[in-house]
């Protein structure tokens, strides 16, 4: 069903682009295609069947040279890997999905084809590059701004495929500022290779302040091409190139710091999500819950199940998963508390062992029910890709959402603790159990619900993590150590401490990582925490209460 969704989307996009291209050709006043051209396109396309990858690239160029809207549709289908042929009569087919197969030329539906009756026309990486470049050259005249922008960005990558006249023609028609800027960069890249010193100087000037990686790459290559004598004889060019490059590098460095900070916050958000639940069960109740990771895992599996139930609404399924995961993990948490932990209060070692046992049981249960293989949880479209601030600083959407989500969860939890009756009772029990009990609070049930709350929040973390990592039986193990680290560092029983600890550990990790590598970064952070705990055994923010008194 997932496949189906995607296919529908692809069709839609295809139809839209076809429509716009068609409209453009009309508008540009291109002569209508004469029938012989269509026939030759037919023949050219057919020769793809027997060609090897190198020949296919040449054939694709011939197809693009035909320049009709049909040839563009076929090239796009080819790029998406949806171009097939029928084995018995070599009819070229566009396969949108198994139920929607069309003849590539007549657009008539073709029915009754089995899996083995058709064969795909293969496409590999270098061919994909060629196709993308060809399609961009055709699309640079499209009416759709988004398509033109995409085409221009692609041309930047494949500037060697086009000539100055082509870019200038596109430039003269263009009125969008952003696209104009990119096209002039493309022009610069071409001119940089020219024989005229003047043109090269003009190209170098046009590069000023551009953060596109292609420009930096071209500058580096350009400067590498200078021999020692040339450095003297063409000193003006060399110096300008050097200055432009230095300028770009320093801006890139600045962006690099910003990017690192973002990475750190994103990692911190994940740590925060994983640790928040533990801040309740371990921090407030003082239960060393080794099964905390498995609560996260259950949340992730809940997301998977919800998504299986509503396969056509991936985005909505994520929203539904949040309360569902909270309930599932929360219910399991309450059951664990009532069944096991209740009997072990005040015996931390036994609690640790018992919950560790529970974690193994839960893992194996999941393995038996869902198989040991990882499950696929799809990401909605709005969670993939990047949010581009500038060409050198792109923020990934999924991390951005998770940062916001983690803060939201923290805020809601803080509200529950501060503003609800349950929160009040919970705090009362934490601070002084006999007193709370004598005021008529059923401390046993408050314990169970508190544990359920902590577990439920772990479940919510699972929903978020299902978007970042594997949904498998071992998901929880990867986060249990980190969670304890954050809670202990932040100060047991303190939500704000957890927030500060998660974010600072995330950022610290990401600052060290580029210098020391991922393995050493993790070790250094651990060493730092050990030293810190020596100095301040109660973490960043110590809290008075049952947990604090016991320690």
């Amino acid at each position, binding site marked *: 069903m997932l496949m189906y969704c995607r296919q529908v989307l692809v069709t839609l996009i295809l139809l839209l682009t076809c429509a716009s291209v068609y409209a453009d050709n009309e508008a540009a006043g291109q002569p209508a295609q004469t029938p012989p051209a269509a026939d030759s396109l037919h023949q050219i396309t057919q020769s793809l069947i027997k060609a090897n990858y190198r020949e296919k690239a040449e054939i694709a160029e011939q197809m693009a040279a035909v320049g009709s809207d049909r040839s563009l549709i076929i090239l796009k289908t080819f790029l998406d890997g949806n171009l097939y042929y029928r084995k018995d009569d070599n009819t070229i087919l566009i396969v949108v999905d198994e139920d929607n197969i069309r003849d590539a030329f007549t657009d008539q539906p073709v029915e009754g084809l089995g899996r083995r009756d058709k064969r795909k026309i293969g496409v*590999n990486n270098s061919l*994909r590059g060629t196709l993308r470049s060809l399609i961009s050259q055709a699309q640079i005249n499209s009416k759709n701004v988004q398509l033109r922008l995409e085409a221009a960005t692609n041309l930047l990558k494949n500037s060697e495929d086009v000539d100055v006249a082509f870019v200038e023609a596109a430039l003269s028609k263009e009125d969008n500022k952003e696209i104009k800027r990119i096209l002039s960069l493309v022009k610069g890249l071409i001119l940089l290779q020219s024989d005229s010193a003047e043109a090269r100087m003009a190209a170098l000037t046009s590069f000023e302040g551009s953060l596109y990686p292609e420009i930096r790459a071209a500058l580096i*290559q350009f400067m590498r091409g200078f021999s020692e004598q040339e450095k003297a004889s063409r000193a003006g060019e060399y110096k300008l190139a050097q200055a432009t490059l230095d300028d770009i590098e320093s801006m890139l460095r600045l962006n690099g710091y910003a990017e690192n900070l973002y990475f750190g916050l994103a990692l911190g958000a994940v740590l925060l999500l994983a640790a928040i639940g533990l801040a309740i069960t371990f921090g407030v109740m003082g239960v060393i819950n080794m099964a905390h990771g498995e609560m996260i895992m259950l949340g992730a599996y809940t997301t998977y199940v919800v998504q299986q139930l509503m396969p056509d609404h991936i985005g909505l399924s994520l929203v539904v998963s949040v309360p569902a995961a909270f309930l599932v993990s929360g219910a399991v948490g309450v059951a664990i508390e009532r069944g096991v932990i209740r009997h072990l209060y005040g015996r931390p070692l036994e609690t640790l062992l018992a919950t560790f046992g529970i974690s193994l049981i839960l893992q194996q249960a999941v393995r038996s029910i869902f198989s040991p293989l990882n499950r696929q949880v799809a*990401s909605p479209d709005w969670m993939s890709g990047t949010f581009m601030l500038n060409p050198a600083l792109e923020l990934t959407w999924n991390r951005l959402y998770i940062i916001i989500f983690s803060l939201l969860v923290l805020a809601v939890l803080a509200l529950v603790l501060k503003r609800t009756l349950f929160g009040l009772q919970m705090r009362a029990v934490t601070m002084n159990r006999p007193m709370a009990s004598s005021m008529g609070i059923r401390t046993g049930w408050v314990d169970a619900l508190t544990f359920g709350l902590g577990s439920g929040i772990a479940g919510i973390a699972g929903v978020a993590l299902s978007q*970042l990592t*594997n949904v498998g039986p071992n998901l929880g*193990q990867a986060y249990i150590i980190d969670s304890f680290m954050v809670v202990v560092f932040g100060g047991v029983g303190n939500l704000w401490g957890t927030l500060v600890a998660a974010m600072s550990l995330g950022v610290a990790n990401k600052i060290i990582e580029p210098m020391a590598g991922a393995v050493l970064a993790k070790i250094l952070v651990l060493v730092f925490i050990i030293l810190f705990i020596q100095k301040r055994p109660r973490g960043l923010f110590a809290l008075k209460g049952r947990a604090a008194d016991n320690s």
Partner: protein
Amino acid sequence: MNKSGFKSLSKVSKVLATATLAAGISLANAADTIKVGVLHSLSGTMAISETTLKDTVLMMVEEQNKKGGLLGKKLEPVVVDPASNWPLFAEKTRELLEKEKVDVIFGCWTSVSRKSVLPVIEELNGLLFYPVQYEGEESSYNVFYTGAAPNQQAIPAVDYLMNDVGVKRWVLAGTDYVYPRTTNKILESYLKSKGVAEKDIMINYTPFGHSDWQTIVSDIKKFGSSGVKTAVVSTINGDANVPFYKELANQGVSAEDIPVVAFSVGEEELSGFDTAPLVGHLAAWNYFMSAPTDANDDFIADWHEFIKDDERVTNDPMEATYIGFNMWAKAVEKAGTTDVDKVESAMIGIEVPNLTGGMAKMNKNHHLSKPVLIGEIQEDGQFDIVWETDGVVPGDAWTDYLPESKNLISDWTAPINCGNYNTKTKTCGGSMATAE
């Protein structure tokens, strides 16, 4: 690992073992079944990969029994669960050999589990078929390696990228343990021998199960944006691949810009997630499910029937298990007995069909000769085979690209009869002491 220690010990113990085994053989002959041990983790972290191989062995045993078994006896599988726990691998091996008296063991996935089994299987003179690609630098009398050695996977993949794709800058990214470290050491020295400069190689290690790839992907992006074609050679293990590829896609790194060639990503790993953003990234194996041969179609059909699920995929370690099992069956028939020493000498030179066409041959060094394929990931989680070696590549137990092993060879036939024979000093295991 101390090879020389093992060797001298195993020689002594082999004399003892043959004596004690005489009793064992008569016992085994008296029994009316041939016991096949299956040593794959069915629980714990490695269950994800190893359960499939357990099922593959069971399928092969069932099929062999349909054909009437071996030497007129039925095969009886003995399945144990070492639970992804390395010391338990050694204990379970001892149990299989001493208590169950199995005639052969198919098992292990990670190198550390194999290293844990090694002393036991050498002491008790058992027989192990190891079906997974590994870092090489080992050859035991008691083990047959049916997975790829580095020269059957990593080096052809690098050759392909260098010659056919024109890659000039290299990122060697791996998980921090023995297989990636050794493979990357070999690759680094190989690349340098091909004239790649130090500054054009970036090596990066990450912890097991690493899930936060933001910085590394961003670094790779920067490393790859100098205008020279860049590729990533990934020895990232198992689960960590999914978040790695997700991050690559999210940060907009496509296979056309920076292709990633992986040695641990196969059909099974891909069946766990949405492959659309991965299309075009590469993998090097000796087998792909998409291989267009009749033998492969039959194998897939048999597998679907056995596992009763048409969606299940097949992968390279399954083919290695298939080859290993068929070779063992053929060797037992040739030797006329399941006695380890006789089967071992019958094994060498045996040929069985590959699933990708052609024949796999067992060499004197207990490694296979088989073809190497490069595939590009497709939308449906399958691989499109874009390149393959001409003919077969013989597995090299000791790589020629590391100074400590370049003079070593393995040859288990007379007169050398040694797993680490030094061709310079003409001694067995002589150089190991100085090399390590």
